[in-house]
Structures are given as structure tokens and as C-alpha cells.
């Protein structure tokens, strides 16, 4: 039973869907970050698989940069989260409504 690119892409799609569902249903900011990590990982799998089946290293390069971005995002995001928590004592998304029009 041959594992083809399609298998990986289907897996990637499933993980991406899980991530998106998480993004949409989570109210806790920390949990939201987790969901975004899942999104990034789903794309990483797709990049690596395509890289492998096409025989091109560019896919892996992109995956590297995505990991770098994810790391930066976590650093800044968590910093902001801590500031917000110190100010309000909550990290609930529904309470962040200072952008209400």
C-alpha cells in the first residue's frame, strides 16, 4: 500500500480543519494560541510532504521559517497575554471588547 502525496494532503486538511474549529470555538486566549499552533503544523506537514514528493528543498525551507515565525509569535503573544492578565485578571476573549464600534 503506497502512501502518496494525497494521503499527506488529506491529513494536512484534517489537521487544518481541527485547528480552524479550535480558533472559532475557543474563548480562552491561551487555547486560541494552541489552535493556531495546530494550523501552522498542519501546513508544515503539507510543505514537507510536497517537498518530498516533488523532490525540492524549498518546501522544507518554508517549514523552517514557519517554525521560526511560530516561535516569535508565541514569545510576543504570551508577553501580551501576561500584560492583559495583569491588567484585567482574565484572559477571556469575550471580555476584550474595547474594539466595539
Amino acid at each position: 500500500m503506497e502512501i502518496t502525496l494525497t494521503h499527506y494532503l488529506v491529513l494536512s486538511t484534517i489537521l487544518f480543519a481541527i485547528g480552524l474549529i479550535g480558533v472559532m470555538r475557543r474563548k480562552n486566549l491561551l487555547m486560541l494560541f494552541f489552535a493556531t499552533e495546530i494550523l501552522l503544523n498542519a501546513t508544515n506537514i503539507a510543505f514537507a510532504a510536497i517537498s518530498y514528493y516533488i523532490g525540492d528543498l524549498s518546501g522544507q525551507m518554508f517549514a523552517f521559517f514557519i517554525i521560526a515565525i511560530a516561535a516569535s509569535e508565541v514569545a510576543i503573544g504570551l508577553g501580551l497575554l501576561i500584560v492583559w492578565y495583569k491588567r484585567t485578571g482574565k484572559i477571556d476573549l469575550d471580555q476584550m471588547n474595547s474594539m466595539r464600534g
Partner: protein
Amino acid sequence: MFEAIAFYLFAALTIVMFTITVMTSQALYAITAMAAGMIFISAFFFILGADFLGAIQIIVYTGAVMALYAFGMMFFDTTRDVVEKRTNPQIVFVLGILAAVMVVAIFVAPIVSNNIQALYPIQEGVGNSQAVGMVLFTKYLVPFELAAVMLLVAMIGGIILAGKKMDKSLTLMAEEEITTMDDSFEPQAGGH
């Protein structure tokens, strides 16, 4: 055969772990499941021959990112159940799946139709780490350096944001408040 078994096994494990991450109401379960999911993902990278990427995945994600999250969680009350608003969960599921399918379809369409030429082909007889290094430090040198700077900026940003005095927002305060704050806090800051 071995490859297939490995793929299906890890695929199932990853999906289960990430589902737990998204669905659980316990923050601790979520972070643990995610750390596990990250490690399982690295297995795919090894299967796909991207050894270096797999190693990075384990070190950066499971090591650094998850550690950061774990530290972050110490600030928050993690024992409490995470309350989620559950309005129309169907819509969320349908939308999520739809969007995922479409995004993948649109990006994969050109690849499937086989009209892409390999720019940096994987060379025979060269280890993955070596090949990655070659490409990374030649063709992708500038993005690499930029990524390094970005990480540095993110690090400093994280430190400053999470550091002291940050319970006050300078941008949200009036001019006078800032000046009075400076007076009262200056000696303290000097003390450090």
C-alpha cells in the same frame, strides 16, 4: 508497508491529540495533548526524509514553544475549567472543514497537475542536514538572517511585555498620569 503502517498510526495519533487539544475543557490536558501531537508530527518529517526538520520540530516546538506555554500557564489559573460559549457548534465545524478543504485544494491544484519544476532538487548521496544547510545558507540567506532578527525582536518584546511595570499601559494613560508615574517610579527603577 512499514511506511504505510507508520503513516496511519501517526496520523491517527496526531488527529486524536489535536482533537483533544481543541475540545478539552482542561487547560493542562490541552497543553499535554498538544506537546504529544507536536512530537507525532515530527515522525512524519522523519518518514518524509526531512530529518533536520523533524529534529527542529521536536526541539523548537516541544522544547521551546511548549515550555513557553507551560511557563505562561503558570500565570493563569489553569485548574479551573475553561468555559466555552457553545453557540451553533455545527456552523463552526462545517466552516472549519470547508475552509480547510478549500485552502488545501487551491494551493495544491498546481502541484497535482504536475506543472511545477523543482528549483532545488534533493541531491543523491548527500545527507538531509547537509543539503538543507547548503540551500539555507545560499539561496535563503537573507530570509534566514531576517528570521534571526525577527526572533531577536520577539525575544526582547516578550521580555519587555512580561517584565515589570507592564501592568500600566503608557498608551492608555493621559499625559499627566505618565509624568506623575515617572516621578513615583523613577527611584524604584533606578534601584534595579
